[in-house]
Structures are given as C-alpha cells and as structure tokens.
C-alpha cells in the first residue's frame, strides 16, 4: 500500500507540474506573440530600425523564456523556431517587407502551435 501511495503522490506531483508547465507555456507564448504583433505593426509603418531592435530583443527574450522548453517539447520544433527567428531577423535587417511579413506570420504560427500542441483537448487526445 505504501508503494501505491508513494507512486500516487509522485504521479499527482507530475500531473500538477504538467498543468503548471502548460500554464507557463501559454503565458510565455502569449507574450512572444504580443511582441511579434508589435514588430508586425512597425514593419507595416516601415519603421525598420525600431523593428530590428525589437526583433533582437525578441530573440533574447526567446532564449530566456524557451531555455527549458526542450526538456518537455520536441527538440526539432524548438530548433525550427530558432532558425525561423534568425531568418526573420535577417529579412528585417535587409528591410524586405514581403519576406519579413511572410516569415513573421510563419513564426507566429509556430510559436502559437506550442501551447496548442500541449493543451488538454479532445483534438490532442485523439
């Protein structure tokens, strides 16, 4: 019985940790998406200097926020976001509006996909 109780306690702790990490992922990705939207509006206004500065900030923010994500999420997905962010930064630096907006849209979807994939939903369950 003691073994069952210990395992149950560990399981409850892991489940609680799972819910907590889902919450962290949701809030962190919401912030990142908000920053991306800000950059998108700067690009729309052709304020490239500011957009580039914000993109660099976003890159640092990503490193800080997503540092522990590979422990839980597919490493390939994390790498893809990192590569997409690097591409986006170069498009902004080159002031290429079409490519920057296209890449930003992809990046937005990729980041939003993370909490969606981890969310407790019927779609994910099946």
């Amino acid at each position, binding site marked *: 019985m003691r*073994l*069952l109780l210990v*395992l149950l306690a*560990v*399981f409850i702790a*892991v489940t609680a940790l*799972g819910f907590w990490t889902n919450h962290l992922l949701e809030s962190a990705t919401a912030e990142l998406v908000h920053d991306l939207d800000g950059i998108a509006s700067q690009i729309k206004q052709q304020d490239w200097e500011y957009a580039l500065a914000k993109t660099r900030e976003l890159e640092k923010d990503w490193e800080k926020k997503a540092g522990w994500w590979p*422990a839980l999420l*597919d*490493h390939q997905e994390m790498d893809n976001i990192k590569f997409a962010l690097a591409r986006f930064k170069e498009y902004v630096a080159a002031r290429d509006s079409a490519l920057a907006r296209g890449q930003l849209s992809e990046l937005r979807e990729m980041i939003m996909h993370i909490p969606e994939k981890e969310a407790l939903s019927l779609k994910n369950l099946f």
Partner: protein
Amino acid sequence: MILGILRTLILFFLVVLGLRLMGKRQVGQLQPYELVIIIMLSALAAIPMQNTGVPLVSGLVPILTLILVHVALSYTALKSERARGIICGTPSVLIENGKIIESELTRLRYNINDLLEQLRSKNIPNIADVEYAILETSGHLSVIPKSQKRPVNPEDLNLSTKYEGLPVTLIIDGYVFRKNLDRINLSEDWLMSELRKYNLHNLKDVLFASLDTEGKLFFQVKSRAG
C-alpha cells in the same frame, strides 16, 4: 552519441526499477494486463533512447504512469475478488471428473491438440488419466491426475518420514553469510573449526558450503584452491 549512451542508461535503470517495483510476479507467468504493460514499457523506453530529438520526459512520464497503473491494478486485484475476475480473468476448467468440457474449449478457442500437447508436456500422455485440467489466468495449464494414476507418496504406504527442512547456505564463492550463521546460532569460528578438520584454513577457498537440518556440513572447495 554520448547523449544516446546517457539516455539509454537512464531509461534502462528506470525500466529495471519499474519492473522491480512491479514485483517478482513479472519474472514468471504474466497476467494479460502485465504483458500489455511490459510490451508498452519496452516501446516507450526505446523511442527516447534512439531519438535524441524526443525529450526524455516524454518517455519517463508514460513509464511512471504505467508503473502506477500496474501497482494500482495489482492492489485492486489483491483486495477485490470481483476486480480480480475482471482484471486477470478467472481460471477455466477444461477437464472435470475426467470429462472434457467441450463448451469451455470452444469458448476459449482452445483446441484438443493444444490440450493434448500441454498434457504430454506434463508427462501425461493419456487424457483418460486426467481428473481435472484447469487453464489458469496466466495461460498455464494445471493438471490433476486421477488418484490411481498419481505417484505413490509415503502417506499412501503409511510410512513415517522425518522432518526435512531447508539447508542453510553458509558460503558462496568464498563469501560467508554471517546472517545465516546467526540465524542458526552458529559462528564463523565454528565454521572455520569444522573446515579445519578437512585441512582447509581459508574460508575464501570454499566455493559452496551449506548445513542441512541434521547438522551435516556440505562443502566444495574452489578448483584452484583444491
């Protein structure tokens, strides 16, 4: 590559720990749900082991869940007869009072050839010698031969027998089991003095030594020492 080695070691030890927690029954005959858990465990451990892109947690959490499920099901089956019937199934009588229960064989899709094969493997070539044959929940066939066909035992012949306990192991490969010596109120000095009678002066030279319930010491010396 180093990552692969480390991940393999972590998962290996976790699965071994899991199997140890599941108990000794795993090693022998498995219940259907235990078999499912073993198959799932091996698959779950293999994926993060070979693919370093998959987080280790993706393997660890399902393994922990399976261990919990196994322990919970085992406790439930232990405490409730009804739950045991649902989880493990119930034994099926295939031969009762020497008569094959055809309906049971059909229900279990167990053909007569399988039954005969199992009986032969238990040294019962003639089905007519069987009083009861029971298919256990683990798939193991238990056979009870007719009383006329079972081996004679001392009770049948009204013979009195003396107590036969279990010999106590005292030394294995030079290692002295002091706990066993204490249990039978003997000491290492006694063991040494007994072995000296056979011109043995070092316990490390003994491959195996045991003491039976009649107090007879059995020992064998290591080949290099002999």
